[in-house]
């Protein structure tokens, strides 16, 4: 054992000697010089720097590990030069850093190495990987994600862009701003500078602060709040190539209160449900005018309302649109866009909706017996759509509409229950059909080329939109029956109107003569036929008997 130790002693002595010399030599070296990797000029710690270090060492607030970094970077004239030739001061204003969101005044101050990882920033520093300052800034911003794992979405171009906007561009580097500061309007200079440089419209610091306060940058995903951050701002407009402007301010409450909002049976819709795949910055407009934009945007309604959308395509409005009439009503013209109300509540809303374009007709209608009752909240009277249809609104001037119109009126006027509420006769349709006009109209086939659609239908006598009570003292049909007849029968004389049964089923009281004639035939026909059938039956009986008789014999 000892022999072994003796044998190895020279080697141990040698190692000890080398170690001692090394330590000695190390202590004999000149003072520490900090070197920027590219900059050859040595940097020495000044007296002031040492003082700072001393102060910092005494401070129990600051992490010890920053000491080495601060020793050099707190006070230096050194610059960093990039391969591109750009230079960048290596000095860090420790006061600003301390006051920043990440500084000593914050609840959880960061170390230098929190962002500038110790492994990469060991002194002497390695060569920079970044080709220029911008590349360096972009690369450095990635370190924010170490803590800020889910950076908020912004409309700004991301890292995939050629010219991305990164964290530090807005928030600052060592002078990183707190949320409160940003909301107070600090830091918007950076926005303005960048926007001015890149030609982005928003350069008003107040407006920018407004957007920040509206939560534009507090979003984790694209949702209503994200969109509304901009679109809730008043008086924002979109301009079209043809010079049209369109307000793009959205009333968030109206949207929330609309049928697509909180009360939606499916789910409250979000902006992107209709504005599919909209991102900021928005795609450039593909249409010329505001109207074309509306028409194009209406296509999206089909996603949920396919049947109604398809019905509308076949309607007068859809056809007019197909023919190139851009004024033809589309979904949002009647239903509204963001403030879509329940379309039939109150019922009056329906007719008022149509009145937006069909004002004259509405004025006539609202004075009519139907229109007047509608305004009193009568749930039975027809609104525009009860006769014209809702989405599949057909052309009311066609022959087909004309000849089917009595059945349309009969839909309500032959409804016992509904008419009993208004004390109106339900005989009107049957009595019409049993009269000459109605008979002809019922037998009319609109497909037939020889068809003559001129026989009177309900609205020829009663009026179309301006229907009044038949006994209305001024405009009632009873007052002016002869004139009404003479519209089609110019030679009609005073007796002529009585040839119309006035919708009364024949009875002893009304249309007595017709009643008596009908009564006569109601008796004579069964009597005659019964008698003839009896005679035929006896004859058949006799023939069968004689047939049986002759076959027996």
């Amino acid at each position, binding site marked *: 054992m000892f022999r072994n130790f003796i044998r190895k002693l020279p080697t141990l002595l040698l190692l000890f000697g080398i170690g001692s010399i090394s330590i000695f030599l190390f202590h004999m070296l000149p003072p520490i010089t900090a070197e920027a990797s590219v900059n050859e000029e040595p940097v020495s710690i000044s007296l002031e720097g040492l003082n700072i270090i001393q102060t910092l060492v005494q401070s129990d607030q600051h992490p010890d590990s920053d000491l080495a970094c601060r020793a050099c970077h707190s006070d230096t004239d050194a610059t960093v030069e990039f391969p591109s030739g750009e230079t960048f001061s290596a000095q860090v204003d420790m006061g600003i850093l301390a006051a920043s969101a990440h500084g000593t005044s914050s609840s959880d101050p960061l170390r230098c190495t929190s962002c500038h990882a110790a492994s990469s920033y060991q002194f002497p520093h390695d060569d920079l990987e970044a080709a220029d300052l911008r590349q360096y800034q972009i690369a450095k911003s990635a370190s924010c994600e170490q803590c800020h794992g889910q950076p908020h979405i912004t409309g700004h171009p991301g890292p995939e862009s050629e010219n991305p906007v990164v964290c530090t561009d807005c928030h600052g580097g060592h002078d990183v701003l707190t949320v409160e500061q940003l909301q107070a309007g600090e830091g918007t200079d950076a926005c303005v500078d960048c926007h001015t440089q890149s030609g982005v419209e928003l350069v008003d610091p107040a407006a920018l602060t407004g957007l920040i306060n509206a939560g534009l940058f507090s979003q984790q995903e694209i949702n209503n709040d994200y969109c509304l951050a901009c679109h809730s701002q008043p008086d924002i407009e979109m301009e079209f190539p043809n010079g049209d402007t369109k307000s793009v301010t959205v009333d968030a409450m109206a949207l929330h209160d609309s049928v697509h909002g909180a009360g939606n049976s499916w789910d409250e819709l979000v902006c992107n449900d209709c504005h599919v795949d909209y991102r900021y910055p928005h795609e450039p407009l593909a249409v010329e005018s505001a109207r074309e934009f509306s028409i194009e945007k209406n296509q999206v309604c089909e996603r949920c309302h396919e049947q109604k959308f398809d019905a509308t395509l076949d309607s007068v409005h859809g056809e007019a649109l197909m023919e190139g009439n851009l004024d033809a009503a589309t979904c949002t013209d009647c239903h509204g866009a963001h403030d879509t109300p329940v379309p039939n509540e109150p019922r009056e809303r329906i007719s008022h909706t149509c009145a937006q374009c069909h004002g004259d007709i509405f004025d006539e209608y609202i004075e009519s017996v139907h229109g007047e009752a509608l305004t009193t909240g009568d749930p039975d009277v027809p609104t525009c759509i009860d006769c014209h249809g809702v989405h599949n609104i057909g052309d009311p001037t066609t022959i087909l509409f004309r000849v089917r119109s009595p059945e349309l009126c009969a839909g309500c006027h032959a409804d016992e229950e509904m008419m009993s509420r208004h004390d109106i006769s339900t005989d009107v349709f049957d009595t019409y059909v049993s009269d000459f006009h109605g*008979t002809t109209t019922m*037998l009319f086939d609109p497909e037939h080329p020889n068809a003559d659609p001129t026989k009177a239908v309900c609205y020829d006598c009663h009026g179309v939109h301006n229907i009044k009570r038949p006994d209305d003292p001024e405009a009632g049909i009873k007052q002016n029956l002869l004139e009404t007849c003479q519209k089609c*029968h110019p030679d009609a004389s005073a007796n002529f109107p009585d040839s119309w*049964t006035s919708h009364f089923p024949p009875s002893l009281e009304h249309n007595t003569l017709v009643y008596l004639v009908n009564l006569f035939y109601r008796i004579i026909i069964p009597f005659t036929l019964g008698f003839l059938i009896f005679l035929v039956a006896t004859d058949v009986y006799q023939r069968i*008997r004689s047939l049986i008789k002759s076959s027996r014999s």
Partner: protein
Amino acid sequence: MATAPAEKQQRFPRFRKMAQLEHIILLVSFTTLAITGLPQKWPQAPFSLWMINLLGGIETVRIIHRWAAIILILGSFYHLFASGYRLFVKRERMRVLPVWKDALDLRDYVLYNLGFKSEHPKMPKFNFGEKFEYWAVVWGTAVMIITGFMLWNPIAVTNFLPGQFIPAAKAAHGGEAILAVTSILIWHIYNVVIKQFNPSMWTGWLPRRQMEEEHALELERLEAGGDPWPGAALEAPAHRKRNYFIVSAILGIFILAVIYYLFTFEETAITTLPAITPEVITPLVTPAP
């Protein structure tokens, strides 16, 4: 026409050529009127619409109906003039008039059919059923022509009559149509087609077996050498003929004029309604609330 009774004649003359022609005119016009008219009685029946469209639409059907009516009216007036000539000029006996014996024949016919009587009643040239049919046609045609005229010219008619006559005429026209068509289908078709085909309206002759059953009395008369058309061979006095032709010419011209006016009497209604085209698109200045 009459042949020797000894030969046991197999068929007997029954209808003159003109009577056969009148029947064809009546058959064609009546059927046309029924086909074009009845669908209008039930305008809501799918069959009616099908039939109307098959015939070329309601307006065409009405034109056909009116032409058929003209033919029926002309046929009817021919019958009246011809009958008038036979009755007033030739003074033939009017054998189609109902007599008391017809009622007895009817009674006996029913009793025989039911087995209460062993003998079929012996009936004359026109038996009770045929007389009933004839007078039913006279009555029905009169009703149809009068009410049809009223429906055709309601404005002219209401110049003289109360307005309610028009719907009453419509009711009568429809009721009478149903009565006539159903009577023909039940009674006439049974008796001349179903029971046993009666060829006399097409040939003018009726076989002995049918004569024996339906017109035994006439058969006896003919076999006894009677003239099929008693009095037809008589030569009427010239002045009677002349007077009748004058009267019938005047009446005929009047009737033709009336028929002509049926088509042109009045313009009941204008053919095209004035189009109601209010200004459709009239946007509000301010949007509705």
